[in-house]
């Protein structure tokens, strides 16, 4: 979550839901607000909020060193009803989508419709330029014969579908140059695996989560974010 989004959200709470704001402040160890003249733009809470991982207040993180244990643990915590904030792995773990219960990515549709649009655009571009705006007589042939225009239609389709997919991937995943990577534990791009559970959910039971992590040979369990 960006700084601006945090501020807007806090502003919204300040105006309409003072109680939730004070609960949030309490969670971060800040004094509840009592007067109307305390500005929500002060940034104190924003900093605390952003300082916690992923904009969430607190996470219970199980660190694993083995792919299989990670998969089993993910499945187990999900079935136990915990709210999985995210799982962090150094490589794409096969079967993780099912274990986490993620739905299929919709990037395929982005790619499909971008390709469809690009193909149509490629056809129209050639039709307009070579058959309407300035038809060139090449050996007395018709200005518009589809076969001759297929290669460029195809190339346009691939080019625009590919670039759109890339942009969509980065935009949806909020990856952009200059973004500061927030690693949940060091070594997550090397050989560590981590499951992060949200403390916030209603039936969160830290002891039970710790027990589950331990059952699947978690190397360590960390309590991240906020003040405990």
């Amino acid at each position: 979550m960006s700084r601006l989004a945090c501020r807007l959200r806090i502003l919204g709470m300040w105006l309409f839901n003072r109680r939730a704001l004070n609960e949030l402040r309490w969670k971060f160890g800040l004094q509840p607000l009592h007067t109307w003249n305390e500005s929500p733009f002060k940034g104190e809470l924003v900093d605390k909020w952003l300082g916690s991982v992923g904009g969430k207040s607190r996470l219970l993180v199980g660190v694993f060193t083995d792919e299989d244990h990670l998969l089993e643990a993910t499945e187990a915590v999900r079935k136990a009803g915990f709210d999985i904030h995210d799982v962090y792995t150094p490589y794409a773990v096969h079967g993780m989508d099912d274990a986490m219960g993620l739905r299929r990515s919709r990037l395929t549709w982005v790619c499909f419709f971008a390709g469809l649009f690009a193909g149509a655009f490629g056809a129209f571009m050639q039709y307009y330029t070579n058959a309407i705006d300035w038809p060139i007589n090449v050996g007395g042939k018709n200005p518009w014969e589809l076969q001759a225009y297929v290669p460029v239609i195809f190339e346009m389709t691939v080019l625009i579908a590919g670039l759109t997919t890339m942009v969509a991937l980065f935009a949806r995943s909020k990856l952009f140059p200059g973004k500061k990577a927030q690693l949940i534990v060091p070594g997550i791009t090397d050989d560590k695996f981590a499951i992060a559970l949200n403390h916030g959910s209603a039936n969160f039971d830290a002891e039970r989560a710790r027990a589950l992590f331990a059952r699947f040979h978690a190397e360590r369990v960390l309590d991240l974010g906020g003040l405990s």
Partner: protein
Amino acid sequence: MSHSVESELREPLVLGEKTLHQITEDACAPLERKPNTLWWAAFFVALTCLGVGFAATAYQIATGIGTWGLNKTVGWAFDITNFVFWVGIGHAGTLISAVLFLFRQKWRTSINRSAEAMTIFAVICAAIFPLIHMGRPWLAFWTAPYPNFRGPLWVNFRSPLLWDVFAISTYFTISAVFWYIGLVPDLAAARDRAKSKIRKTIYSILSLGWNGSARVWSRYETAYMLFAGLATPLVVSVHTIVSMDFATSVIPGWHTTIFPPYFVIGAIFSGFAMVMTLLIIMRKVVNFEEYITLNHLENMAKVILVTGSIVGLAYGTEFFVAWYSGSPYEGFTFINRATGPFAWAYWIMVSCNVITPQLMWFKKLRRNVVVLFILSIFVNIGMWFERFVIVVTSLHRDYLPSSWAYYTPTLIEALTFLGTFGLFFTCFLLFCRALPMLAQGEIKGVMKTGKRKHHDSGHGHVEPRKAARVEQEKEVAHV
């Protein structure tokens, strides 16, 4: 849980029982150590070639392409040969990264990154030639269909040469994007290991804040699959279109329907040979012999054998059709190829492309690095001559005997070609130093480190691997 269990009988993809951490270490090692003398020597030679090529290019652009050995009869020769040669080289990279990905060939993971890099550099080298051939390369943007004040006078979309513009630029863009997307997780790994501030900053910017989130991995895998799906028909289309530069003409020897598949297969053939040449050197120099194993080389040798045989079949088919069509011009062109003034080039092509790859039927030779290296060089040479034979021998005997001619390249042309080799190797050597050469994210994914032990022992508990960095882990900061 249901996992794919690797057979114990199958040879491992990576030798030496690597842990995940060791893979990271090994993949990042070339980036983190000082280059050795061999690297500097190679870099110096490559840079020299590049400099010579640059001077030659500048000279011919300033003077005009009259500096070439072309004549009225042979209007396309060295330049177009080199163009087709370099585009062909590029094809193996996309084949390895996209087609083998779709076919779930796990062995691709050790070689795909460097093969993709090779693709990009080869396409850059290829693009230089038509640019120079334009004569006035500063007007190259005229090939783009943009609204202009010359009418607007549009480009002719029915010309295969314009298809080429679209095909090559699309191919370059999509290959670069595919390569970069594959690089992001590995750049993140390099970032998290970087000691110096500058390295950390550069890798941070390039890795886009990647933090290994499984939600992102899920989308990433989908996007990667989509790119593989887009790149596969693309790679076929690119050399198909390159072949149409010739096949849509009416020149005997060019005007054949076999050209698209023949060119695509030839491209894969030559590309794999170049990948092999590079990887045999690289695995030795950078110490990647446990990652790029004899198995990888053997697999590539098998691809070379298959594609080489198909290329041989295509040569035979061309001859057969030239006779069977009953066209005297076709017949003459092919007889002339094998016996005319350029017969030497033809027979170099046949012996390098058809005869030597047949040695790959023998397993002993397929697993012999020296033999493979020599073979790959042979194929590189043979495939260059294939393009030379197609381009030049079809032209040099015109319909009127009075216009028959011979073609000899000038020094400028040769130096330009040398220059593209300089460019190619300079880029490749810099790539070896600056970017992770092994796709460690993908290699780790096919390692199944814990899996084997996990499945054959009933108790299900795996001893945690020896953590090499216990100290570091103790310092995990609470955010």
